[in-house]
């Protein structure tokens, strides 16, 4: 049986499979199952049963999310599926691989998802800088239309679906699903208040599902090979495989599809090849720039949503950023703070005005001008920008590396103050 459903077709040294080759390798099987009578509710049950959790960061169960979409006669006729391909979280490079490597997998997944919620229109919200993904996807979409997998009355099911490519104009906040909807509507990409959730009132006020690229790419496997197979893929409590990446000063940085539940150490040592010669691991962010630092002592923890949460961090995107002992942790957090401050949409006060202050303080630290008072202000901002206080999760995301950095690398911060310089700089 297939053990790497997400990447089985991917070989970056050649162009991605065309539709024929993709089909030859079990591709678009799910559509034929649907054509044979699998109803939207059947698919929903399968996806619920699979236990698939969103891969966009928050890990929300996908089937459950879909079940909130209003159904039946009285529900709005137009519903939308939106694929979140905005991938801008620092240190995250997984969706790009899927889109450039196997575009039809994404399209097949989209058709399944759209069919389930009965959305006749679907947008791929692609970050504008992903020019290769755009080209590859546009070509695949064309192929799918030609094959009759997109368009009107797909495979005689009576179900219509158009997939529209939207390339963004660059803002991290567009990855936040409600800000994304505003961006798609041509508005300033401020997030929206929840409730109402997009499932009820989303794009142009219509029921909308937003899913991450990787989430969607899990669907063809679930329909083709079944829920039991899917459950068998994992080593831990969560189901399926996941893309895991490692960046930073390791020997072989990269991105791999691995079972959920693998110990972190295995990822770091077996796949990323361990630290570069002469460097020691000082800490790491397990799932992108808005997760909390973990330490070498956490290496034996499993890559599993709940396990990682137990030590105060999040699996999130599964792309790990490694901090070595010769790189300044204060500088690293500072770099993230600059990012978050710049990418704040400017809607709510704590994030808009709090993060630039934090950023300024880090710049001062960098220049040897940090003070105890500033350190206190940083601590205060960890609470101030935390969950429930800001309008969306961007600022709380920023507090993850900030808070954990202050906690784990306290001495480094203090050294910057006492030595009035960054001692990592030569």
């Amino acid at each position: 049986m297939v053990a790497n459903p997400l990447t089985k077709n991917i070989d970056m040294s050649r162009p991605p499979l065309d539709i024929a080759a993709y089909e030859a390798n079990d591709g678009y099987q799910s559509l034929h199952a649907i054509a044979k009578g699998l109803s939207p509710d059947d698919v929903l049950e399968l996806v619920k049963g699979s236990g698939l959790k969103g891969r966009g960061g928050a890990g929300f169960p996908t089937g459950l999310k879909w079940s909130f979409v209003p159904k039946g006669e009285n529900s709005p006729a137009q519903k939308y599926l939106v694929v979140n391909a905005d991938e801008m979280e620092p240190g995250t490079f997984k969706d790009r691989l899927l889109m450039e490597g196997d575009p039809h997998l994404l399209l097949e997944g989209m058709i399944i998802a759209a069919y389930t919620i009965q959305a006749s229109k679907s947008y791929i919200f692609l970050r504008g800088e992903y020019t290769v993904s755009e080209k590859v996807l546009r070509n695949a979409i064309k192929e799918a239309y030609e094959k009759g997998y997109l368009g009107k009355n797909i495979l005689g099911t009576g179900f219509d679906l158009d997939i529209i490519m939207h390339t963004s104009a660059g803002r991290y906040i567009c990855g936040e699903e409600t800000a994304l909807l505003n961006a798609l509507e041509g508005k300033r990409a401020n997030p929206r208040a929840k409730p109402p959730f997009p499932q009820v009132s989303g794009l142009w006020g219509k029921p909308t599902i937003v899913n991450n690229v990787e989430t969607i790419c899990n669907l063809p496997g679930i329909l083709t090979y079944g829920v039991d197979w899917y459950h068998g893929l994992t080593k831990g409590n969560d189901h399926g495989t996941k893309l895991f990446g490692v960046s930073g000063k390791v020997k072989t940085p990269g991105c791999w599809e691995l079972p959920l539940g693998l110990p972190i150490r295995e990822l770091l040592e077996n796949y990323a090849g361990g630290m570069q010669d002469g460097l020691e691991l000082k800490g790491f962010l397990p799932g992108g720039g808005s997760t909390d630092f973990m330490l070498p002592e956490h290496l034996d923890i499993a890559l599993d949503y709940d396990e990682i949460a137990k030590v105060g961090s999040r699996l999130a995107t599964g792309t790990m950023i490694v901090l070595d002992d010769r790189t300044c942790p204060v500088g690293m957090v500072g770099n993230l703070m600059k990012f978050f401050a710049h990418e704040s949409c400017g809607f709510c006060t704590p994030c808009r005005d709090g993060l630039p202050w934090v950023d300024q303080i880090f710049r001062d630290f960098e220049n040897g001008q940090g003070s105890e008072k500033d350190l206190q202000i940083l601590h205060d901002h960890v609470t101030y920008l935390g969950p429930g206080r800001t309008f969306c999760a961007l600022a709380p995301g920023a507090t993850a590396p900030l808070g954990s950095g202050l906690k784990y690398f306290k001495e480094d911060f203090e050294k910057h103050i006492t030595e009035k310089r960054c001692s990592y700089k030569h």
Partner: protein
Amino acid sequence: MSQQVIASTAKKARKLSAPEIAEIEHEMTLYPDKKAVGLEALKIVQKHQGWVSDESLLGIAKYLDIPVADLEGVATFFNLVYRQQVGKNVILFCDSVSCWIMGCEGIKGHIKEQLAIDYGETTEDGDFTLIPVPCLGDCDRAPVMMVGPDLHRNLTPEKIDSIIADYKNK
């Protein structure tokens, strides 16, 4: 019913070109609301003109009959809509965390030396504009940057030199 998108202005709208209009019209078929096409139109015009001048902004607003103030609000929100003239090649330089760990500051210093420009600036010959960009999603091959639509990975000072030379010759 036509919106009342009158806004007195000292500047005159630029009439959009036929290819620009054709592309905008195509986008109109993909979105149920013309406001959504505003952002698309900004990108289209930028593709043709290199950037979005005040005159172009007014031109789009007029063509779509949407308020120019709203369109400006959108144009100035997004990182990749240029409301100032940029050079022939825009360098989007990633300085986010993984690239930073992998030494992008040195690479940036090198670019700065070679082209004599800092962030937000354009070379005197108009060939290059340097702009920072958040994480380009290629962290396993950091440091990375884009020049125009092309991605360049595992940057070193030497690589920078040859990239600059390549684009200069284009």
